[in-house]
C-alpha cells in the first residue's frame, strides 16, 4: 500500500489560521479549533484544581484561593464564552456532517446558487445563539463580582 504523504505545508500555522477569502464558515473553522485548544488547556488544569475537593474543606479552600482575582475571573469568562461558541458551532457542524442544513443538489443554472446560500443562515443563527449564551454568562459573572 502506498502511503499518502500529502502536500508540503508551505504556509505552516498561518495556512491553518488564515481564512483568506474562503468566507465566514472558514473563519468559524479557525475559531472552533482555537476555542477547542483553549478549552482543552483549561479542562486539564480544571481536573487538577477541582480534585482538591477529595481532600477536604481546607484543601478545597486552598485550591480555590489559588484561582481567584480579576485575571482568573476574566480568564474564566473567556473560557465560558469559548464554551458557548464551541458548543453551538459544534451543533452546526454535527448537522452539516449528517447532511442537514446543506440543501438539496440542484441544476447549475444561472444565477448560480450553492450550498453556502443554505448554510449561511444556519451559521448566522448559531452565532446569535452563542452570543446570547455568552452574554447570559457575562451577566452572571458581573452579578457575582
Amino acid at each position, binding site marked *: 500500500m502506498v*502511503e499518502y504523504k*500529502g*502536500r*508540503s*505545508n508551505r504556509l*505552516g*500555522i498561518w495556512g*491553518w489560521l488564515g481564512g483568506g477569502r474562503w468566507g465566514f464558515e472558514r473563519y468559524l473553522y479557525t475559531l472552533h*479549533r482555537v476555542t*477547542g*485548544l483553549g*478549552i*482543552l488547556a483549561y*479542562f*486539564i488544569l480544571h*481536573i*487538577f484544581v*477541582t*480534585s482538591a*475537593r*477529595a*481532600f*477536604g*474543606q481546607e484543601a*478545597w*479552600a486552598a485550591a*480555590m484561593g489559588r484561582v481567584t482575582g480579576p485575571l482568573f475571573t476574566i480568564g474564566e469568562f473567556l473560557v*465560558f464564552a469559548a*464554551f458557548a461558541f464551541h*458548543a453551538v458551532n*459544534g*451543533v452546526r457542524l*454535527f448537522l452539516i*456532517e449528517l447532511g442537514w442544513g446543506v440543501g438539496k443538489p440542484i441544476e447549475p443554472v444561472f444565477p448560480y446558487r450553492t450550498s453556502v446560500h443554505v448554510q449561511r443562515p444556519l451559521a448566522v443563527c448559531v452565532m446569535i445563539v452563542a452570543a446570547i449564551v455568552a452574554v*447570559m*454568562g457575562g*451577566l*452572571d*459573572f458581573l*452579578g*457575582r463580582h
Partner: protein
Amino acid sequence: MREQRLWTWHMGAGVVILVFLGLHMTVMHLEGIVGIFNPAEGELPVAWANVVERSKSAFFMVTYIVLLGAALYHGLFGLRTIIEELNPAAAVKKAVSAVLTVGGLLLFAFGTFSAWASYQLARGL
C-alpha cells in the same frame, strides 16, 4: 475505516458533552438565572456547602466520570486532528497518538479517583 470509527466516537462524545457540560455550566455559571443544584442560600456554586451537596449525589459522581471520559476523548482526539492537519511525518503522528492515549488514560484515572473519593468523603460528613 479505523479513522472513520474514531471520528464517529468524537461526534458521539460531543453529544454527551453537550448534555452534561451544558448542565455543569448551567449549575456553575448561570446560578443567578437558573438556581439549580446549589442548595446553600446566598452561597456561590463553588462554596464548600454546595460542593459537598453535589459530591454526595451518585448522579453527579457518575455524570462527572462520564463527562470526564467524553471530554478527554473529544479534546485529545481534536488536538490530534489539529496536529495531523499540519501534516507531520508518519513517525510524529504515531508518537502524538501514543502520548495522547497514555496521557488521556492517566488523566481519566486521576479524575475518576477524585470523583469517587469526593463522593465517599461527602457521604461520610
